[in-house]
């Protein structure tokens, strides 16, 4: 007997009798004998909860959770209010399916509507979808949108865009042969996109330019200047934004973005070793019919009661089949619920305060690190809460030493940028204390 399978032998007997079969094997007679599995699969179990917990704790004990974290680079250790986990653990939310039966799904539909509203507010745009898998695939979907809407096929990616986002965009573009996308990268100078090179590469065949704000190095890109260059040639400006930074920074919408995407993991999703995270995408109302994924809209029932419903579904795979804007079906709804709860309790003041604390702590840490002999700034442009430090010391040596002090140090940029040898990308969030920053600088100072 298995605890997730109610049928007893008696139940089975009765059911078989009702359908006129003498054994369960008869139900599989239409499967050719030669391919049927002859022996049990080699799988451990069935295990009790006790053994299962033991097994996973054993595995977990082979991982190290650093007490102090100064690494970001696309995944962030953030404050997650207790309420978030409690809400997403309500079984009515987490065990339900996509809300195709709107009358019994008003709960999640309303949450998504609220999520869409909040993402529009943060990014300064008019419409949002219900979520995508992550920031990197959101980048690919945004590029496809721009290519389809402009009818052009050159795509310019700033090299300061997260390397994984660039990589995913390239993979998706390579395989979307009908679109015939040609990707070029725009180099950086002093940690920011080189505007002269961008200007030179622009022409009327460019569908879009993708820039990250703040960029992968933590630096503030000159989006105001980039917007002028991009729109002069009739191309789309796609901005990949960090949602926490938008508590302080002017929204990409205000700066003229046509599409805004990004990674929403910082809004209530734990690090989880890389997934599931939260891709978001927002845009202008006039482009809504090319927006991929699910969208919730407001409507009324026969009595005039307000209600919410999945809408514009004709865009989606299950209706357009071969002609849809994208193939996405499941998205990352529960992560979007987490983001909605996060943004609700943090609210307009909380998101500003988190952003402010990140800014202040990061700049404090930056200045303190520079006091350590041998540490130099990687770039001199304004940054938000991530910054680059270069030195003569091998990054592995630095981080090994920091590890002994229970500190996860900066990210070795030479992994993605061979020209940035001995450059480390540090991240400071609202969770880092002054004492932790002191411990970091003490440890860096103790290195020979």
């Amino acid at each position, binding site marked *: 007997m298995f605890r997730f399978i109610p049928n007893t032998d008696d139940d089975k007997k009765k059911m078989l009798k009702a359908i006129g079969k003498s054994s369960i094997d008869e139900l599989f007679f239409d499967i050719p004998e030669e391919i049927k599995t002859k022996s049990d699969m080699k799988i451990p179990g069935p295990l009790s909860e006790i053994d299962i917990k033991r097994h996973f704790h054993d595995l977990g004990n082979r991982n190290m959770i650093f007490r102090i974290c100064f690494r970001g680079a696309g995944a962030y250790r953030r404050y997650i209010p207790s309420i978030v986990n409690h809400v997403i653990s309500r079984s009515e939310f987490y065990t339900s399916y996509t809300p195709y039966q709107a009358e019994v799904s008003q709960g999640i539909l309303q949450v998504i509507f609220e999520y869409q509203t909040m993402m529009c507010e943060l990014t300064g745009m008019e419409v949002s979808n219900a979520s995508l898998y992550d920031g990197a695939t959101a980048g690919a979907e945004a590029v496809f949108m721009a290519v389809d809407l402009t009818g052009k096929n050159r795509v310019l990616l700033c090299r300061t865009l997260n390397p994984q986002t660039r990589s995913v965009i390239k993979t998706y573009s390579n395989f979307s042969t009908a679109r015939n996308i040609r990707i070029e990268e725009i180099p950086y100078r002093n940690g920011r996109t080189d505007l002269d090179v961008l200007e030179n590469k622009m022409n009327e065949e460019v569908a879009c330019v993708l820039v990250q704000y703040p960029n992968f190095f933590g630096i503030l890109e000159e989006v105001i200047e980039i917007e002028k260059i991009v729109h002069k040639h009739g191309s789309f400006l796609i901005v990949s934004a960090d949602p926490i930074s938008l508590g302080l920074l002017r929204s990409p919408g205000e700066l003229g973005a046509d599409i805004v995407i990004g990674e929403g993991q910082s809004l209530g999703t734990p690090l989880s070793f890389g997934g599931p995270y939260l891709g978001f995408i927002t845009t202008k109302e006039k482009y809504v*019919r090319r927006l991929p994924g699910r969208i919730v809209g407001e409507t009324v029932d026969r009595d005039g009661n307000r209600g919410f419903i999945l809408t514009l*579904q*004709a*865009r989606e795979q299950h*209706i*357009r089949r071969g*002609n849809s804007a994208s193939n996405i079906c499941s998205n990352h709804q529960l992560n979007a619920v987490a983001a909605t709860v996060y943004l609700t309790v943090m609210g307009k003041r909380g998101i500003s305060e988190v952003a402010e604390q990140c800014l202040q702590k990061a700049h404090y840490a930056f200045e303190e690190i520079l006091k350590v002999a041998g540490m130099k700034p990687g770039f001199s442009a304004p940054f938000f809460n991530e910054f680059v430090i270069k030195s003569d010391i091998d990054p592995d040596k630095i981080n090994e030493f920091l590890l002994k002090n229970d500190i996860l140090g900066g990210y070795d940029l030479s992994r993605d940028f061979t020209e940035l040898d001995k450059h480390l990308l540090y991240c400071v969030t609202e969770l880092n204390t002054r004492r932790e920053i002191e411990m970091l600088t003490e440890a860096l100072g103790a290195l020979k």
Partner: protein
Amino acid sequence: MDVPKDRKYSSDHEWVKANGNNAYVGITDFAQSSLGDIVFVELPEPGKSYAAGNAIGTLESVKAVSDVFTPISGKVLDINKELLNDPGLINRLPYESWIVLVEIENPQDLNVLLSSRDYEQLLQKER
């Protein structure tokens, strides 16, 4: 709804009503009924030319998206902008709501289309 006798029909349930050297194109009552309530209409750009049988736009309903094909070759002279504001017009008045006005490139294209009687017979089979 009766099938108007003053025009020709395609087997894809479009109608073509000649007007001198030009023709109005729309969809039939059967087509609008199959689609359901139309919520959005995508129209071609005036000035572009299309060959007979090519898709010139789409009609989006809650449950489906359907291409609109032009039964005749020609240049699009005009589009019915009223449909952009009120796509439901096609549902309510399918035979009055033209979608595009096309310049007839080959008058022979009209000859291969179905007469109203042929179209009525086609409908009998579909039902």
